[in-house]
């Protein structure tokens, strides 16, 4: 077991806990850099989705996981970012300026949507953001001059300062770099007073207020920052999907984003990335399995001579091809995560790490929470 001996306060505010942790992140960076060389274009394209969803995850994590404000309308921010970016690109605005403008517009929308959040919490806020998402989707459909309505809107490959990001691998690197930047900036906020104020609002508004946190200001800031990051993700999303249509930014997509942070693990940036891996890679995994399972079982059936296994395999393949199965699997996993591991994939990860670092002395009860004490509700 590693023991960290601390000798300076500086050690507690570092980006990486110690040299070993930094080295592991270095290894991860090398793997991310090397993947395009090792994998086929199809897989690189799918992993690019992980990065884009990762940025979305960071956005929602700040709001839901750290500030405790639930939003069911974040796909709308993604859409605003995507459409704004596409619109500016079409009108000849350079890429960087276009992204900056898209981020500014989503930030403004975030502040406006955040205003009711100053008075609402929990389910009421979720409903308000849901309504916002419905309205925005309608705007995407009707405002044909800007969005092209149902006809959609084509988005070109990014060109940044004359550099063309038209190959799958170059766009992969662009998304990876922006995700890394987002993670670092967000971590910076979270390790300073703004981030602590957000966490304070999540855990006890009344105490946060008594400690000097201006609740409306910090809630608006959380909404604005979350929307800004979502806008950034939207710009990349627009390039990745190449063709924007209003029905992409549906309520279901908002719910999927919320699922991302819950499955990943609320209250950690790792969770945002883990959740993104899950959400982005589940559909291709299902796609691979629906061909691989029948094939493997047919092989097994012909090798052993038990014909019924081949039939079952074909049945599974047929089942996985049915529409709605993917959504069903998403839902099932969400229910299982909430029942079995409320801390999400990140929670499992922490337990796994502790298991190996304390082996063979690991105790399951290390993570058992003692009973929660009653908190005063009468001031709410």
């Amino acid at each position, binding site marked *: 077991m590693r023991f960290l001996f601390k000798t300076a306060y500086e050690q507690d*505010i570092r980006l990486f806990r110690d040299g070993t942790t930094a080295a592991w992140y270095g290894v991860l960076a090398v793997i991310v850099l090397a993947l395009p060389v090792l994998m086929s274009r199809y897989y690189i394209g799918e992993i690019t989705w992980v990065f884009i969803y990762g940025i979305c995850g960071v956005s929602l994590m700040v709001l839901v996981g750290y500030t405790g404000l639930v939003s069911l309308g974040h796909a709308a921010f993604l859409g605003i970012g995507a459409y704004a970016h596409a619109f500016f690109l079409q009108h000849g605005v350079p890429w960087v300026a276009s992204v900056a403008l898209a981020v500014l517009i989503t930030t403004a929308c975030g502040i406006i949507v955040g205003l009711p959040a100053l008075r609402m919490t929990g389910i009421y806020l979720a409903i308000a953001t849901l309504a916002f998402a419905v309205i925005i989707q309608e705007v995407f459909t009707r405002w044909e001059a800007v969005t092209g309505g149902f006809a959609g809107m084509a988005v070109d490959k990014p060109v940044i300062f004359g550099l063309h990001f038209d190959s799958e691998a170059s766009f992969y690197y662009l998304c990876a770099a922006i995700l890394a930047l987002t993670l670092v*900036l967000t971590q910076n906020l979270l390790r300073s*007073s703004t981030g602590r104020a957000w966490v304070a609002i999540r855990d006890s508004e009344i105490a946060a207020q*008594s*400690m000097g946190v*201006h609740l409306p200001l910090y809630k608006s800031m959380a909404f604005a920052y979350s929307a800004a990051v979502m806008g950034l993700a939207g710009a990349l999303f627009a390039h990745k999907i190449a063709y924007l249509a209003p029905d992409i930014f549906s309520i279901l997509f908002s719910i999927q984003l919320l699922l991302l942070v819950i499955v990943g693990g609320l209250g950690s940036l790792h969770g945002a990335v883990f959740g993104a891996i899950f959400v982005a890679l589940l559909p291709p995994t299902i796609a691979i399995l629906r061909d691989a399972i029948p094939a493997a079982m047919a092989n097994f059936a012909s090798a052993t001579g038990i014909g019924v296994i081949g039939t079952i395999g074909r049945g599974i393949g047929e089942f996985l091809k049915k529409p709605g199965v993917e959504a069903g699997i998403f839902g099932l996993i969400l229910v299982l995560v909430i029942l079995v591991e409320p801390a999400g994939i990140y929670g499992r990860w922490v337990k796994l790490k502790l298991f190996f670092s304390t082996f063979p002395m690991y105790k399951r009860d290390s993570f058992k929470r003692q009973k929660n004490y009653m908190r005063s509700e009468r001031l709410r």
Partner: protein
Amino acid sequence: MTFFQAENLAINFGGIRAVDNVSFAVDKGEVFTIIGPNGAGKTTIFNLVSRIYQPTAGRLLFEDRDITATPPHRIAELGIARTFQNIELFEHATLLQNLLLARHVHRKTGFFSELMFLPSVRRMEIEHREAVEKVIDFLDLQQYRDALVVNLPYGVRKIAELARALSTDPRLLLLDEPSSGLNVEETDEMAFWIEDIKNLLGISVLMVEHDMKLVTAVSDRVLALNYGRPLATGTPQEVQSHPEVIRAYLGA
């Protein structure tokens, strides 16, 4: 100069007058306790002082400044910190993060410098940490520094909340039933902490408390309330032997 003064404080909740014409003054460097039976309006007075409730009538003065209209998030900035009757710590954060949050009023960095984590932010963080470590040393909380509050036992949480209030560098400390839920030893210990806060840190304390042993041990002056009205003010002994107070408690 008055240090802290409440003048003719009153608040109505619908038809109920929870606090009715209460006046008291806390002098610098004293421990002033409010006692009274359940529902007497003690915590309501606290919520009035920390500006969570808006008084129907009356004035609040702190260091000659009228704070009757100050918004609640500005109270800590002025030098008034409080604890809660039912512990309102930030449970899913470590004790250290809880205490650092209390330094919020002393931050000098803005959103964008924090986004970039500029050297100024780094210096500020170290400064906050040094201030917080002093409180940790003062209250002997070293071993719980990195523990999540959810995992701390109740007695430690009580001290942790005291530590969080002290981390704001207050001049007036409001303690809402510091001994509730504590056993006899922990209550004795709490009495020592309160004395130390008064004598070593020079912080004035306004306290609501039921445990008369703790009240007599630490209070300089006591105000007894019943049904939102003041019954008596004076030293703990005077108030305890006051006939009105005895009647309120024993119902004679």
